[in-house]
């Protein structure tokens, strides 16, 4: 990265967040907080069946309810030319079933919307929706991930064996050869259970159509408002992009679930025009559990081949991925290019082969959830390496260390397509072990075991891919969009600056971190910089925030736009100082002839000069504003080592996380406080997958835990405090040296905790249990095995 611009640079400092004041005083502005004059309210009629033919919809009684303005069905939307919701990632031979915003003749999961009622207030809309009488003919449901292929029922008639696609990567012959030479072969079947994202703010939308101007405005809980506008406008609704404004105001968490285009916002954006009134809808939490895209849901057979000394020779992976009832926006890339490509982890693995079968089932659609494919890869790799260490009788840290890609091997080409940018894995593991005082903890564990206490230590050395993504690369792999990012930097005549970013913050603190970045680059106070995001009417077309891309891609776009501003400022300064532009240098916002800092032009003076335009060089236009569209040349690859120490209660099976150490390397860091905060939250979500969370359906596709009463989002008293630290290996991919930090915690912590629990259960001879590692599951395992040492 460039040198800090000021002696007390704000780049790298834990600056307190400027977002906080409004959130702490109740003055945040989330979608549901926006109400327009004449706003009406929508309630959706949803299928109570996982799979049913919709024979008829009787709206007679509902229409009689006072305050009801309109009731619409899927047939009406289709008749008016509303299209289905598309997917934005295509793979060879993929099956693309239609996904109408309201089901027309068949409902394919519990909660699928079949009609909408719009009324003067939300209570009346709900009352009337309950009076809509839908005549369903229930059909057999396909639910089980593994059983989908053999099911006699088809979720979609166009997808035989319920297969959406088959995908493979790597060299199968090389893997076969590696296995034939192996001294040790380790095999395990692993379930990576389905999860719900549970952003605390439920999804919400408010659509308003102005008949006089023909402008359509949509406020929506979106991580990527331009993507919403493009897909809804061009593909679903046929609304011209320049007459369609999408605003994603304050958004209360996303974790992936607010990337996608959902039926409800499409219906509202269409309905507002029909009834000439604004229409609002906000999901109840129950609706969120039924309809927000969910994550994970893999069944995987993994095999690892090692030589006699524990060097990894090959990895073979076969996965069935459950995509749910419809293809959500990015669903096809999650169990493929965000998963199979990460299977080398931090290890030198000469041969890897992965096959993925993706299936449709009569369940809620599945798409990206924090980590998206990368947690699934990290979990299987870190589990199988741990199982291998146990089987061979090696220390799990030592086995990992001896298989690390060495620091001098970067850039490193894996056998699964990716080229890692930079890495230095051993120091991160060493630091984590040191922070934990590993030898002492091993000793304490041995003592505890003698006392009949079951303490376990679990290590995870993970990798993740951020800086999503080089557009040409993802285009060649099936993406239907570029994945660059935009920035527009507008310097006002007084030298104050507005930065417009295509990234979107929904908890990440961009208003602070991007202001730090701009302040650093321009050499002006942070207070002189405003960050603007989330409104397609003011921000240049941008791709939004997911995949830990905002700082690495969005930040670099800001950095590059500021570079153009500074170039122009130098030309103006050169003109005023009667020097050549190449002789002008800049420090702390002062522009001067190299070696003559006493005759300097300040940034504010140059901005004013640019706008007055009384005295500019002939070839320089007035004004001071620049755009950048930054397309990364590669992904970036954060990594690290997480270690969990847990104790399993023999009496109850309950797991207590005693200690948690996280060492992450996310490259250069703009604001350590914010990065630490994201790591904390990520760890909590990852621990929750290991121990508690699981979306469950019964055999008929009925959700069994679709509320916060039954879905186990962790609470404060279930979690420990976290001990976090960092090593810093800058990325050479972008000029800021940033790798990305939003998902590391989630990716790393799940296998660390699962490994720790399995380590705790070693005295019982239990080598593997599938997540979530609930008290019941652990107690049953301990009860049936018994402590082998006493046998």
């Amino acid at each position, binding site marked *: 990265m460039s040198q800090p611009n000021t002696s007390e640079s704000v780049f790298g400092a834990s600056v307190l967040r400027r977002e906080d004041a409004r959130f702490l005083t109740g003055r945040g502005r989330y979608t549901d907080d926006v109400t327009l004059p004449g706003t009406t309210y929508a309630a959706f009629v949803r299928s109570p069946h996982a799979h049913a033919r919709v024979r008829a919809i009787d709206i007679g009684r509902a229409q009689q309810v006072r305050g009801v303005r309109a009731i619409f069905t899927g047939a009406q939307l289709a008749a008016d030319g509303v299209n289905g919701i598309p997917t934005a990632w295509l793979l060879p031979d993929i099956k693309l079933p239609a996904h109408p915003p309201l089901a027309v003749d068949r409902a394919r999961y519990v909660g699928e919307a079949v009609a909408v009622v719009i009324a003067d207030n939300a209570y009346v809309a709900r009352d009337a929706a309950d009076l809509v009488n839908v005549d369903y003919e229930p059909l057999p449901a396909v639910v089980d991930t593994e059983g989908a292929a053999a099911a006699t029922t088809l979720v979609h008639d166009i997808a035989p064996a319920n297969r959406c696609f088959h995908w493979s990567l790597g060299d199968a012959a090389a893997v076969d050869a590696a296995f034939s030479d192996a001294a040790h072969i380790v095999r395990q079947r692993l379930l990576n259970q389905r999860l719900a994202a549970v952003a605390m703010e439920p999804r919400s939308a408010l659509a308003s159509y102005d008949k006089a101007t023909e402008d359509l405005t949509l406020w929506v809980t979106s991580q990527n408002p331009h993507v919403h506008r493009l897909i809804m406008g061009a593909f679903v609704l046929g609304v011209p992009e320049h007459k369609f404004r999408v605003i994603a105001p304050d958004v209360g968490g996303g974790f992936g679930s607010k990337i996608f285009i959902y039926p409800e916002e499409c219906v509202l954006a269409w309905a507002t025009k029909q009834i000439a009134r604004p229409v609002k809808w906000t999901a109840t939490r129950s609706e969120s559990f039924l309809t927000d895209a969910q994550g994970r849901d893999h069944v995987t057979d993994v095999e690892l081949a090692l030589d006699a000394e524990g060097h990894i020779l090959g990895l073979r992976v076969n996965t069935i991925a459950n995509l749910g009832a419809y293809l959500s926006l990015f669903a096809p890339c999650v169990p493929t290019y965000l998963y199979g490509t990460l299977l080398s982890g931090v290890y030198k693995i000469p041969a890897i082969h992965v096959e993925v079968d993706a299936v449709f089932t009569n369940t809620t659609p599945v798409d990206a959830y924090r980590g998206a494919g990368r947690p699934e890869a990290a979990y299987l790799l870190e589990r199988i390496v741990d199982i291998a260490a146990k089987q061979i009788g090696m220390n799990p840290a030592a086995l990992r260390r001896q298989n690390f890609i060495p620091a001098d091997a970067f850039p490193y080409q894996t056998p699964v397509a990716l080229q890692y940018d930079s890495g230095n894995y051993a120091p991160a593991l060493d630091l984590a072990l040191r922070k934990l005082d590993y030898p002492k903890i091993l000793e304490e564990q041995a003592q505890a075991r003698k006392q009949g206490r079951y303490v376990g230590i679990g290590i995870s050395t993970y990798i993740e891919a951020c800086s999503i993504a080089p557009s040409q690369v993802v285009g060649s792999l099936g993406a239907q969009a570029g994945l660059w990012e935009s920035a527009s930097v507008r310097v006002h005549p007084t030298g104050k600056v507005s930065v417009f970013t295509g990234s979107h913050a929904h*908890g990440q603190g961009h208003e602070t971190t991007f202001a730090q970045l701009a302040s650093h680059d321009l050499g002006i106070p942070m207070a002189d910089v405003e960050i603007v995001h989330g409104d397609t009417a003011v921000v240049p077309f941008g791709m939004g925030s997911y995949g830990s891309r905002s700082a690495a891609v969005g930040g670099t776009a800001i950095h590059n736009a500021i570079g153009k501003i500074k170039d122009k400022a130098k030309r103006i300064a050169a003109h005023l100082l009667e020097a050549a532009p190449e002789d002008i240098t800049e420090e702390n916002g002062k522009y001067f002839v190299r070696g003559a800092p006493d005759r300097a032009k300040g940034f504010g003076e140059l901005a004013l000069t640019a706008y007055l335009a009384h005295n500019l060089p002939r070839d320089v236009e007035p004004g001071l504003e620049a755009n950048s569209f930054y397309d990364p040349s590669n992904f970036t690859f954060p990594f690290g080592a997480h270690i969990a120490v847990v104790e399993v209660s023999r009496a109850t099976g309950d797991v207590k996380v005693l200690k948690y150490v996280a060492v992450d390397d996310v490259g250069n860091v703009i604001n350590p406080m914010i990065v630490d905060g994201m790591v904390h939250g990520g760890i909590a979500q990852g621990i929750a997958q290991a121990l508690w969370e699981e979306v469950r359906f019964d055999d008929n596709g009925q959700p069994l835990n679709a509320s916060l009463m039954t879905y186990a989002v962790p609470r404060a008293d279930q979690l420990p405090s976290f001990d976090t630290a960092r090593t810093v290996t800058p990325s050479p991919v972008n000029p800021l040296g940033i790798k990305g930090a939003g998902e590391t915690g989630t990716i790393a912590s799940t296998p660390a905790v699962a490994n720790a629990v399995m380590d705790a259960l070693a005295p019982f001879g239990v080598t593997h249990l599938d997540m979530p590692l609930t008290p019941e599951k652990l107690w049953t395992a301990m009860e049936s095995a018994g402590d082998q040492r006493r046998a």
Partner: protein
Amino acid sequence: MVEIHLSVNGAPHHDEVEPRLLLVHYLRETLGLTGTHVGCDTSQCGACTVLLDGKSVKSCTVLTVQADGAEVTTIEGVATADSMHPVQEAFHQEHGLQCGFCTPGMVMAAIDLLQRTPHPTDEQIRTGLDGNMCRCTGYHNIVKAVKAASEKLAAEVPERPGRTPIHTPLGVPIVQ
């Protein structure tokens, strides 16, 4: 419709409401106090926490008619014109919030917790905030913030033998 009189953040209100109207919807939709959020429909998440006669309640579980005659304090009524409440300030200093959605409820619950337990241990803080969910922070910095706020409030009112500091809903320390 039922007639109600109540005070919200010190201002009197007189309205006619449907008996089924939840307090949180009265605050948000009728009074426009949108700082109080709705994060679930089963009284689990605590985003809607307000103080009712000085004690924290989940306003999604209170009917507006039940608040007849009561004093309600929402997140909008916690700071003074000049400064944030010590709990709000501590959340800012300790980075106890990210997306901000759970924050108003978390702050109100923390204020109530510190009224009941002015000098909480970390464990008491974690147990005391059990009714409020956060998906962003992993609670790490929330615990730190509440701890810091308790120390700040305690420093403002040094404990003296025989005297018990009481913190009003607005955090104004009173020594009896």
